[in-house]
């Protein structure tokens, strides 16, 4: 009896070790980071695994901050961030990082004004002054001047922003910093900031919910979120003075304009980009890859995946409402790909 039990346990143990240990040629990669690109990343990793069954990538969308921390501690093979890592952050790593833009996202203003159903047009000055608390009524001249024919009420504007730290807030505040020097010196840009005015909602759904529930409110959400939930959103004036309604094409356009500058520094911000049809409030999201990877199997797997992501992978991003990388940016990234050793 005892022997039978023992042998059964042994068998079970063997079965478990066999299960837990993948066949020799399988490469397991761990990654963690940003939540914004999670839907497309999980599609990519699963598609790639189907095409290459020996490579398995496990991604945890714990937030950019968590991804950076884990990469720094060496508990993941690569990280992901909605915000490019600045020199100060890179200095905290004891190894070099190469940042690879993967897809593009945009942020759009959304509002709820009783009696106004059309699409409002916002100048950069109007948006930044609303968020600074300097424009407090909907019929203020700064808003009215770009919306002739719209009957704006004299009600107080209720400003709504994200309360949780997010790449969305980073893009929004990065844009406001660029177009308004006062914003830059007083508030600045980050995943969370010290807001001069307004209420905070948690997540895109929190902001959208508050805007919907509060008359005379204005907020900002990701373009993907607005498209998927059929929300109306406003047009924003770009650097060339044109009012643009955000779309996947107008976002890719903004990135294409910035490609020339990305040769020297891939982290360049693409908000407020020039070009007649570019939408001004958008940004890349990044994968953070160590420059030197000692495990050759892992290195080859990561390089092969990045190559696939930049070519075949880009074909599936628009099905999930992300904007794809412009060709010029893919070219730059291919050069960086060769630097991984």
């Amino acid at each position, binding site marked *: 009896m005892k022997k039978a039990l023992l042998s059964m346990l042994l068998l079970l143990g063997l079965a478990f070790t066999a299960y837990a240990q993948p066949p020799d040629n399988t490469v397991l990669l761990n990654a963690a980071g940003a*939540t914004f690109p999670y839907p497309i990343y999980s599609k990519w990793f699963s598609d790639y695994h189907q095409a290459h069954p020996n490579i398995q990538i496990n991604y945890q969308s*714990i*937030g*950019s*901050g*968590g991804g*950076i*921390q884990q990469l720094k501690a060496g508990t993941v093979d690569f990280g992901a961030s*909605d*915000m490019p890592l600045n020199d*100060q*952050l890179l200095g*905290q790593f004891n190894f070099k990082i190469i940042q690879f833009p993967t897809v593009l996202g945009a942020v759009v203003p959304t509002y709820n004004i009783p009696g106004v159903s059309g699409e409002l047009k916002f100048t950069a000055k109007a948006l930044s002054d609303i968020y600074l608390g300097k424009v407090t009524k909907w019929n203020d001249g700064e808003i009215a001047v770009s919306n002739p024919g719209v009957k704006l009420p004299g009600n*107080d504007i*209720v400003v709504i922003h994200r*309360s*949780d*730290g*997010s*790449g969305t807030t980073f893009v929004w505040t990065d844009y406001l910093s660029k177009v308004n020097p006062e914003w830059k010196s007083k*508030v*600045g*840009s*980050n*995943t*969370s*900031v*010290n*807001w001069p005015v*307004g*209420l*905070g*909602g*948690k997540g895109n759904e*929190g902001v959208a*919910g*508050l805007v919907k*529930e*509060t008359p005379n409110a204005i907020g900002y959400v990701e373009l993907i979120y607005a498209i998927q939930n059929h929300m109306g959103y406003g047009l924003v004036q770009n650097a060339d003075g044109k009012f643009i309604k955000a779309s996947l094409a107008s976002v890719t356009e903004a990135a294409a304009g910035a490609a020339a500058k990305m040769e020297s520094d891939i982290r360049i911000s693409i908000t407020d980009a020039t070009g007649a049809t570019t939408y001004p409030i958008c940004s890349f999201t990044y994968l953070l890859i160590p420059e030197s990877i000692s495990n050759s199997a892992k290195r080859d797997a990561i390089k092969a995946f990045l190559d696939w992501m930049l070519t075949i992978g880009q074909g599936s991003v628009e099905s999930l409402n992300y904007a794809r990388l412009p060709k010029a940016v893919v070219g730059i990234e291919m050069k960086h790909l060769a630097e991984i050793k």
Partner: protein
Amino acid sequence: MTVDVSAMERAPSPWTGRALLRRLAIGDEVAHLVTLIFAFSIILITSLLVYQLWLESASSRHQFGWHFWVSRTWDPVFEHFGAAPFIYGTLVTSAISLTIALPLGLAAAVFLSELAPRSISDTISFLIDLLAAVPSVIFGMLGIFVVVPLMRTTIGPAIKHALGFLPLFQGPNYGVGFLTAGIILSIMVVPFIISVSREVLLSVPRDQREAALALGATRWESTWKVVVPWARAGITGSVFLALARAVGETMAVTMVIGNDPKIVASLFAPGYTIAAVIANEFTEATGKLYLSSLIELGLVLFMITLILNGLARLLILATQRGGGHQ
């Protein structure tokens, strides 16, 4: 001793009784040891928790010192961090929730233990226990979709009309803010007060009630002058259990409080609590000082809980001495 063992080896059956006794005696020791280890593991876990918070908050403590407790700025861009608005928000929302939940919960507990027939009392307390198990995000959604619009259109204006002369009820009413968060919290903590208070009231000896009634007291007098004072310590305990939940509540609060770190008198104004800001900003916090400040907020929350618990003990001690019933 040796005799016993040899006797046992030779003829075990007559000694079974004694062997069983001995084994039980060893069982006592084992049980003693096991429970001791479990009890100490709580102390160990708590001290490890505090140690870790202390360690990780080092750079924030060095940078800001005690100023962290009183500074009103929370600026992740320029890296100025202060906990004052969050401490204020935590205390205010908890106070509002208890102001509402204590009378409600106590009255309900008195009804359930003193007045209601046992079958009704048991059914209702079963439902109340279910209420205590509802996840907090559900209360948050209830807040966003029901309480916030109601607050903006009906409750808020009514309160302003009646009590608008107080600075507590002035300023714009967005529907989200301290008051809404306090109301949601009160719904969340009231089951704790009812459930524990009812049990405590039920455990008051029957002869206490009978003695009061025999002295010519009415039902009301016997309840409020004899039964409730007798159960005072237990009721205080239930209130502090409720307070602990209110102080630490995260999800439901952040959904309805407005998340604006300011110290203002108006209860209609948006505010922020410690637990809410940690949950909101921890995932995307990148800088070392930023992260460390969020962890120090955790330490602050722990210390507030500690202080409140200490006050609870003192209050129970005081009522026991003053009451003289126990």
